């Protein structure tokens, strides 16, 4: 195994524990922020996903050794992330792009306030 020798691992132990604690703290912060119950959907999503991304970065970077991994893995992952983003963004964009009045997303009662104004 190229990147990890006995000594490397021993040195990293403190780092791993640190990441563990950071993850727990991150979870606590996320839940605490949730209790504020923002009115704005956008802010709720941003806060939740921002913290989630940091936690994900910690798990991927340190637990999964990505920080010390080689180009090959990065290349595979970057490609994947790009296509994942494309799938997400383009499908949602296609819905946003439907001309007004052509999407049917209403329940039985049309007097409801609608999320997503189509």
């Amino acid at each position, binding site marked *: 195994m190229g990147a990890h020798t006995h000594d490397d691992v021993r040195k990293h132990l403190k780092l791993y524990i640190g990441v563990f604690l950071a993850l727990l703290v991150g979870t606590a912060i996320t839940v605490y922020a949730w209790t504020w119950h923002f009115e704005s959907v956008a802010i709720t999503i941003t806060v939740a996903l921002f913290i989630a991304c940091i936690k994900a970065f910690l798990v991927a970077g340190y637990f999964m050794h990505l920080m010390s991994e080689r180009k090959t893995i990065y290349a595979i992952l970057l*490609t994947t992330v790009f296509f994942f983003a*494309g799938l997400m963004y*383009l499908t949602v964009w296609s819905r946003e792009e439907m*001309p007004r009045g*052509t999407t049917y997303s209403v*329940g039985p009662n049309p007097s409801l306030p609608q999320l997503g104004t189509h």
Partner: protein
Amino acid sequence: MEASTHAAHLHDVHEAHHEHELSFWQKYIFSTDHKVIGIQYGITALLFLLFGFSLMMMMRWQLAYPGHAIPVVGGLLQKALGTEMMTDQILENGVKVPGVMTADLYNAFGAMHGTIMVFLAIVPLAFAAFGNLVVPLQIGAVDMAFPRVNMVSYQSYFIGGTIMLASFFIPGGAAKSGWTSYSPLATVADLGHTFNGQTFWIIGMVFLITSSLLGAVNFIATIIQLRAPGMTWMRLPFFVWAQFVTAFLLLLAFPPLEAAAVMQLMDNLAGTSFFLPSGLIVSGAPANISGGGSPLLWQHLFWFLGHPEVYVLILPGMGMVAEIIANNTRKPIWGYKSLVYSVLAIGFLSFIVWAHHMYLTGMGTKISTFFQTTTMIISIPSVIILTCLFISLWGGSIRFNTPMLFSLAFLPMFGIGGLTGLPLGFNFSDLHLHDTYYVIAHFHYVVAPGTIFALFAGIYYWYPKITGRFMSEYWGKVHFWLSLLFMNLVFQPMFAQGMAGLNRRMADGGATYAGSDTVVGIDPSILHTNVHISWAAWLLGISQIPFILNFFISMAKGRKIPSDNPWGATTLEWQTPTPPPHGNFTKPIEVHRGPYEYSVPGHAADFTPQNEPERLKHA
């Protein structure tokens, strides 16, 4: 050796220091050797190819002679499939002749023809069979990186295929909502039976997707890790590059379809409404569902796979054709670097063009334009590849053997297929052509005289390496000329049919929409073409008989090859004994040169294999 130790040794291939005599089951059925697995894939896929073709031949009967009983097999089919799927034809004299296809059966055959050809025949043959047989050899490896995963991959394919076949015989018959399985039809088509053909289709697809994913992981890891010393990326035969990109397409594009398949299965069995919209009315009554789902979601997820899938269908074929052209022109492929960058570009771009299958779903102009643009851009690397292959012929010393004939025909046939894709890629013209026979003609040109010709070329080309004998050149040429003629007779008229407005997936071949002096409709001559096309299809079927016979008879009676490298090829798979033993190479392989050193100026030899050391260059 005891039977019990056989199993122990098999489980630890890496531990084996010398060959053990394996039992029949371990050698041929549960083998982890990539060559055996490749042959397993090949035989199974060819059987499915024949089966899928037979389905279509029966459908063509219905299109040419609607309401007439299918000759020869009609009675048998009615007995096997039941009177729900087939009915009697009542002649003028009152006699009942069994064997008329119902519209439901036509739809089932149509859906299964597509599914079987794409997922059970072409992909396993082009990617898995040829890939397994050739790629490890061409990169100088002893086997695939994960031999046991390889075996499981084949078994998963086999199970998926069995489930698909079994679906014909369950109550309600096979899936009949198109190979694209669009919701809500896929969920409501057969509400009378819970475990219906659609459910079998979905479960079968899950096994097939698993098989492809495992295979893709194996191929990519093998190509990255197991290239022989000296085999740098830019010394790889183009076939390996093609398989590498194909594997990435399968790896990243299949999972969304797997997710969608699970969701559609839940719609069918668990009453969910992932793809079922609010207000859905089925058979006159509101459906008992929560609603809130989106039929378009299915389409997005399906085509996210569906488009890369068609590049999976064509790229291995392009790779094979490149190998055969280089070998039979006795000169290097023109533009190796362009080919490599183009195939990488195609792979990348293929993920962001999918909604050109959805132009008629009501998307706005901005996003339609986005997909139209990416679709136009992706045609560029495709043209580059075709151009490089064409230019490769210039100045070549061409040997017109059977593999070369099929490879040469591939070029213009794929050209026609590709060019006819352009009107479909532009959304304004697709408005007129979507879901017509024009589309059928377009994609069949690419896959049938395109990919399948490339696969035939590959079979004729690599057959000697596996069996030690040539297939008959004479019958090969008969097979070629007849297939070329009839392929074109089948699909060329369909362009006209499509432009005249003949829609696809109509069990009566469009008779309901026939025009006449008083009624506006499809020109009767266009409809009559159905008969010509059907006859061409049946003759195409008969033309495959020489191939099938040639394939089997040559194993025993074919002309023996004079050396391990009968075609005089440079790539590594020809530098092995015939057939290659377990472990492939008899001595360690080191690569010293590129893949196409044919007729190199200054070299004494006509060709130099890749593993030939430097010092023999000036012999």
